[in-house]
């Protein structure tokens, strides 16, 4: 009698816990030295190349790829610990996050030897950053509607069009974009799409920041006007972009950044409130921790499945849906708990962090596939679509 969903329970590995302790030591030192200010949603909205280089020097970027390409030859489980600890600290990891998580593995699979030798060591050093090129003005949840074209020319591809909501594009060296390389086949729009790596310093690329409601400008519009990239920038199969992208999205939906992005808000509050919580707040804390522990179990279970080469798409979508809701709920629960402390006793840091948390909450349930898209994936697995 099988259960409907498959999340193995995996015990912590002592070797991984040593790595955790190292990370904690480093992050504490950096924080105490005033080298960063903790923030919620740090992996998307808090970037500091100097910090990324420090992590690169210590071997904490590119953990999963081989030494020949500047990596550490370790497993995705080790990378999980690094991401978990940096999220807990609210550290400025936004510069390298996407390249490390997503594009380096893509290059390893589809890149030329030359690209791997050139780019991967720079990513691992925390010096080379990537942006995601999926959304367009007319292609949000309806991603297959991308219109930006790549046309075959003599020595490569000529790109025209526009991408939008590209986080970190203003500081990135490359974008991997989903582009139309041939027309849709009637109503089947999933054919004719390809993934192409674009050097963002090329002529014809224009990057304009978009300011978000908090005044930050970490995402961008990126315009392409007759941008020519060489042949080998096509990653994977020509026309196979849809399958590659959906596979890639499934892999990144269950990581710790899907349920721990706001943990720094709770942690900051706990330092303020230790020993001062009233009975209602204790109940809130108990419930919150129960949800966090459960999500950790699910996310860690999937990480271990991915490590074995199994990609559970629906389970990942479930984690993202539950985790994003938890992240936003966490901020609300902390707001309620803070009433146990007179407002004049709230530290400035507490106010700053909780305000950032509130302002940065809307994109949680949007990026990487909206909640509605996640529920559609789940509904399909349940046999309802």
């Amino acid at each position, binding site marked *: 009698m099988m259960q*409907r969903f498959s*999340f193995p329970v995996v015990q912590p590995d002592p070797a991984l816990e040593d790595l955790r302790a190292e990370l904690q030591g480093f992050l504490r030192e950096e924080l105490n030295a005033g080298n960063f200010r903790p923030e919620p949603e740090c992996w998307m909205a808090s970037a500091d190349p100097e910090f990324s280089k420090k992590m690169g020097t210590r071997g904490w970027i590119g953990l999963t790829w081989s030494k020949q390409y500047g990596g550490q030859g370790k497993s995705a489980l080790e990378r999980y610990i690094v991401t978990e600890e940096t999220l807990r600290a609210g550290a400025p990891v936004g510069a390298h996050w996407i390249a490390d998580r997503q594009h380096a593995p893509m290059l390893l699979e589809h890149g030329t030897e030359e690209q791997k030798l050139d780019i991967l060591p720079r990513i691992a050093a925390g010096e080379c950053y990537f942006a995601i090129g999926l959304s367009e003005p007319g292609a949000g949840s309806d991603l297959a509607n991308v219109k930006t074209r790549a046309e075959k020319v003599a020595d490569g591809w000529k790109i025209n069009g526009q991408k939008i909501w590209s986080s970190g594009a203003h500081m990135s060296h490359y974008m991997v974009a989903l582009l139309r390389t041939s027309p849709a086949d009637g109503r089947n729009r999933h054919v004719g799409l390809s993934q192409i790596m674009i050097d963002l310093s090329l002529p014809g690329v224009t990057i304009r920041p978009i300011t978000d409601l908090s005044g930050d400008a970490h995402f961008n519009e990126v315009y392409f006007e007759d941008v020519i990239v060489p042949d080998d920038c096509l990653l994977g199969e020509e026309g196979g972009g849809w399958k590659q992208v959906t596979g890639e999205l499934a892999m990144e939906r269950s990581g710790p950044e899907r349920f721990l992005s706001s943990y720094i808000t709770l942690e900051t509050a706990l330092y303020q409130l230790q020993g001062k919580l009233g009975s209602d707040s204790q109940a809130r804390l*108990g419930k919150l921790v129960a949800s966090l522990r*459960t999500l950790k*179990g699910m996310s860690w279970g999937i990480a271990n499945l991915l490590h074995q080469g199994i990609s559970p798409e629906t389970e990942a979508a479930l984690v993202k849906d539950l985790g994003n809701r938890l992240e936003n709920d966490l901020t609300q629960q902390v707001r309620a708990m803070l009433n146990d402390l007179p407002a004049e006793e709230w530290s400035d840091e507490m106010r700053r962090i909780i305000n950032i948390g509130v302002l940065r909450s809307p994109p949680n349930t949007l990026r990487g596939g909206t909640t509605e898209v*996640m529920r559609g994936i789940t509904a399909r697995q349940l046999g*309802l679509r």
Partner: protein
Amino acid sequence: MINTEGMVAETAAKIFTDLCGREIPHQAEAGAYPQELWDALVENGLLLAWVSEDNGGFAAEPDEIFGAIWASVQAASPVPFAETLLANHMLDQAGLAPASGSASFAFSGADIPFGGQVEQIVLFDAKQGTISLFDNPADERRHVDSLSPDGATRFDPAGKAALASAKTNFTGRAFEALILTVRAVQMASAIEAALNLSIAHVSEREQFGRPLSKFQAIQHQLAVAASESAAATMAATQAASACARNGNDPAKAWHEAVIAKVQISHSVEAVTVPFHQVHGAMGYTQEYDLHHYTRRLWAWRDALGNEHHWSRLLGAELAVASPDQIWKGVTTGEWIAS
């Protein structure tokens, strides 16, 4: 994922599939006790699966026990299977022989699952540190729970002589961990069974010329319920795993067990509302099967302390723990010793 492999789990699953068809819980509620089902559980020794060989049991691995309990709830079994298993385990831990028939358990004076049915009751007395076995005479069995046929009733040991009594090394927290874990497994199983019924119903039932399952509003309600179901199973599995790893001292599994009870009890409203909503009036009838799961979920979230009770108890401990200790618990499942 709850382990459903191994002799105990597979034997139990077969018995419940063969002898607890969908008519059985209906008949049981009409007063026809499923004697054949109960006899099969007895004859196959399943009620002694969680008892050491010294006391006549066969000491199955705990994760197999939880798999057997999962199977019993899938079939909406109306017999006190999990309760007797656990009652016998509690007796065994104190070096006492198993109950002679059906049994259930409680903390002193608390509500007793299936108390209106079981022949014997095992009580843990925290003050004395003892486990005692009492008769539950037929003429004194009182069913006081309108939520569920197997729900709680009261038992007052005052003035009654125990059939057997002995000191136990297990603390109150050890028994809490075991009881809450068993309950968590039952609840996660009931949620999944009700989800499966809901999926089947919306796939068959047509309105406006198409199956309900084709409406996005329906799809999303069940997708949310499915995510809660997956989380419930995860929480129950983590608790079961902690109990299995700490068989000699389940107190060490206390946090994971409480977390499971909190997580799952909180999700009961989030799942039973859509389950009933997508079933329409059909799901509200006695004739249909949904209530075998939803009424049990409503009863189980309250019995032995509801989600608010356990959230506060857990939170009260965490409120005086350091942020480092809380983080360690969340990430590794290793909680402060207490």
